[in-house]
């Protein structure tokens, strides 16, 4: 009897200890994610409350996930995010958090982050409910930067979901004179920014996405709600900006475009 009681007490103590350890780990991993594609170290000031955080959209890929399954949204995550915001902090006066914020269309949390980044959108598959949520987010004043998708097939996949978000709004080429290319840096001279695949293919484009396209969706008052970086991979440029083999001029343009998109979304 006494042995049983001792064993039960032992199990209870063990359970409490294990729970405490897990809770601690959970707390310290608040900004870590099991889907991290390229994990980056957690900065010491990760918990700082700031005006802006790099919000990464966690979307569903459904039937278009392919090799990525349902995790295409996590491409380059979290190194690209954290490396890019270092640049935002250094180059602007935006009070920026050192770590990203992952946001879902299911949660109201997304509305607290009016700038959101979606990667590999040639693999997203938004249902009607998610499309409606994204539309509402954008109409309230949110801003979406879509990046890292290439060629006709991925464009069609992207368009399929985007047309559910805005059935009646066209996707148009953003003109050189648009404020988004001048709000901080004058970006009249833009070129294709390839991803890391350039190392092993030697090609600046992927699939049949030869021409870089700077496209967007405007609201009724001529303000960009969605900025689409098609046939390029700015996320990779942010991610590998510190790598000696990744050319500086591509990383530099990717940073400047990203910074302009953020400041545009905070001013328009």
């Amino acid at each position: 009897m006494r042995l049983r009681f001792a064993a039960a007490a032992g199990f209870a103590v063990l359970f409490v200890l294990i729970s405490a350890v897990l809770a601690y780990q959970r707390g310290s991993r608040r900004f870590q994610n099991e889907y991290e594609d390229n994990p980056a170290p957690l900065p010491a000031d990760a918990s700082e409350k700031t005006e802006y955080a790099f919000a990464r959209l966690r979307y569903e890929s459904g039937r278009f996930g392919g090799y990525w399954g349902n995790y295409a949204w996590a491409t380059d995550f979290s190194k690209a995010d954290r490396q890019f915001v270092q640049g935002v902090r250094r180059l602007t006066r935006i009070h920026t958090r050192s770590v990203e914020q992952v946001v879902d269309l299911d949660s109201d949390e997304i509305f607290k982050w009016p700038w959101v980044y979606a990667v590999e959108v040639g693999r997203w598959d938004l249902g009607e409910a998610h499309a409606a949520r994204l539309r509402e987010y954008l109409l309230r004043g949110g801003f979406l930067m879509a990046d890292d998708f290439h060629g006709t097939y991925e464009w069609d996949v992207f368009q399929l979901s985007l047309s559910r978000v805005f059935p009646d709004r066209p996707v148009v080429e953003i003109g050189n004179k648009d404020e988004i290319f001048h709000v901080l840096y004058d970006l009249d001279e833009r070129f294709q920014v390839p991803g890391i695949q350039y190392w092993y293919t030697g090609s600046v484009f992927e699939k049949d996405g030869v021409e870089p396209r700077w496209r967007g969706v405007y609201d009724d008052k001529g303000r960009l709600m969605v900025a689409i970086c098609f046939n390029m991979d700015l996320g990779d440029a942010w991610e590998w900006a510190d790598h000696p083999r990744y050319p500086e001029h591509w990383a530099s343009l990717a940073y400047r475009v990203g910074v302009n998109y953020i400041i545009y979304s905070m001013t328009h």
Partner: protein
Amino acid sequence: MFELLFKYPSAVFEKGTFVFLASWPAWVLIAAILAVAAALAWHVLRNRGRLEGRRPVALWLLESGMASLILLLLWQPALSVATLRPQQNVIALLVDDSRSMAAREGDSTRLEQARALLDGGLQAALEQKFQVRLYRFGQGIARIRSTSELSGAAGASRVGDSLREVVAESATLPLGAVVVLSDGADNSGGIDLETISEIRRQRVPVHTVGFGRHQPARDLEIRDVALPARALADSRLSARVSFRQHGFARGKARLVARDGDKVVASQEVTLAPDGVAQIASLVIPAGAAPGARSFRVAVEPLEGEENRENNTLTRLVNVGQARRRILYIEGEPRWEFKFIRRAIEDDRSLELVSMLRTTPNKIYRQKVSSPKELEDGFPAKAEELFGYQGLIIGNVEAGYFNAAQQELIREFANRRGGGILFLAGRAALSDGAWARSALAELLPVALADTAGTFHRDPATAELTALGRESVICRLEERGDKNAGRWKKMPQLADYQRVGDAKPGAVVLMQVNAGSGRPAPLLVTQNYGRGRTALFATGGSWHWQMLQPHTDLSHEIFWRQLLRYLAGDTPGQVVASTPRPVLNDDGRARLRVDARDKAYCPVSNARVEARIAGPEGASDTIELSPQPLEEGVYTGEWAVAKPGSYLAEIIVRRGEEEIGRDVVTFAREDGVAENFGLAQNRELLEKLAGETGGRYYTAADAKQLASEISYSEAGITTRETRELWNMPVVFLLAITLRTSEWLLRRRWGVV
């Protein structure tokens, strides 16, 4: 009774001077009284016998009183009083001939009562001693032969103006006194101090005889409607309606505002107890179309109301079409900046020119009118900054502005009359060292000189009682609905702790962060010619992002806040009139405040008013500088016909045109006499009291004939009235002696 005891009417005592007729000086009397009192004290003390305590003192007082009275009479006290010489003075009888005097009360009208009083003996009694001039007054004054010429048809009664005219005649006539028979329902703004002092200077007593009930049995009357004379298109106006009722206490009434026949606002109110002045707010949309708007604000007639004509007042509002430019300086990119800009993007009345510090060395400008505007950063010259009507200082530390710019910002509110709004932020307010800056006095709250006051934590905005009434916080027309909507608003993204509101500042919202007492969130105050406000958050954008995109709460709030900020900012030339609606009044007074580009008063300008009215009426007048107010010019214009008028004011200095402004006014006839129907006894008493006259009711007005003689105006003679034989003196003597005798008997010392 008074005359029975004191022999003379009270007027003799009020007007007369106390004198002694005996040749001995007054100090001898005092010395004699003291000596007799001392001798009596010595006598009483020596012979007090069994009397102890206060009893000998009481006997001494009675004996001394009697002795003093005898001594006083030996000095022959008298009153010296000026009296009008019979048959040599003129008495002016002014009878109110306005429509309110035709109001029937009981069997007769007020005018019939006045006529009965005059014809029943008062006029004849006066005519026995004086030359009597009979006048009737209304909008003007006219001499009449008899009371039969009174009709009770004048559209207004101007007691002050009429008196001024009559008193002016005393320069050539021996005017002994003026008698005003009226209900006191003056509706031309009362009697000004100038008139009162003119009458006092002439020493002409004005006696008043009041007619009419002091209060109606069942009536509600709008007393005033305070509505801004100018408004921006699409803005909301707060009308403060003051009214009073009798006979409908705690009942319900409906306040309604109409633009033409269209009801633009309405609200139900619960009526206060009888006779208590009540104020209610009504939010009226100014409308989109520019130009002069005429709003009729009314309390819907109540069942059984005696007078339904006093339930409506008309007010003119000039809806301007000029866009108000507001300069917004923001220290760093942030969501609040973006959403404020979006909120007023569609507003036709406001334009937000912004400068944003995107990097340590770059400023991003939006809505600038030319590439030159704000090219060198925040304005350093008055002409540049004063070109805006409002200023928003966002998340910017105080040290960003140099000393000259700080002084310019202060003068922007103080001299230019602009509005300044301070927002919260990690480099704003206390965290931006504003508490230590010279501009701390601009803020409507006290700031603690400490850091760490800005918190990026959710907090709830709560309306205060004043906030519920304010048009800034009015998201819904109806007050209860508005309060309910604010309760459902999402939490703010952040807030900043500030100290208490300064005296005179108005707290419209408080922030509740869940712990600690609520702190001021939205505070406004007047500063100099302008105003300053504080909104202690940079996170109101949550009201936009956390509510459906169709919800316009955020937009409405910001538009109203910025309209408050810049809507009332004056231009270089500001024209106004104290009474835009002239009720049965034929004089429009114009006032112009002229300033140069640095908003310093212009004293050597030529100010012209071009007036256009109904049926092609037009005129041009020149306004004169006011001697005591630099840069202020005034003028008066006779409004001959009822209708709406527009005056365009043009201010020039030499060849240079300083600016223009427009002011509208209207004349309405047949309205004024519907208001203030109860007898205004307060006015009549004040008039009599200030001029040395007396107020009489219709019942006791017969005494007037005997009392009116005592006056220092006109041709007078000084008469002496002895006082020794007043019955009250003998009564006093008997009382003193009898009291002493009775006390002595009671105490056994007879």
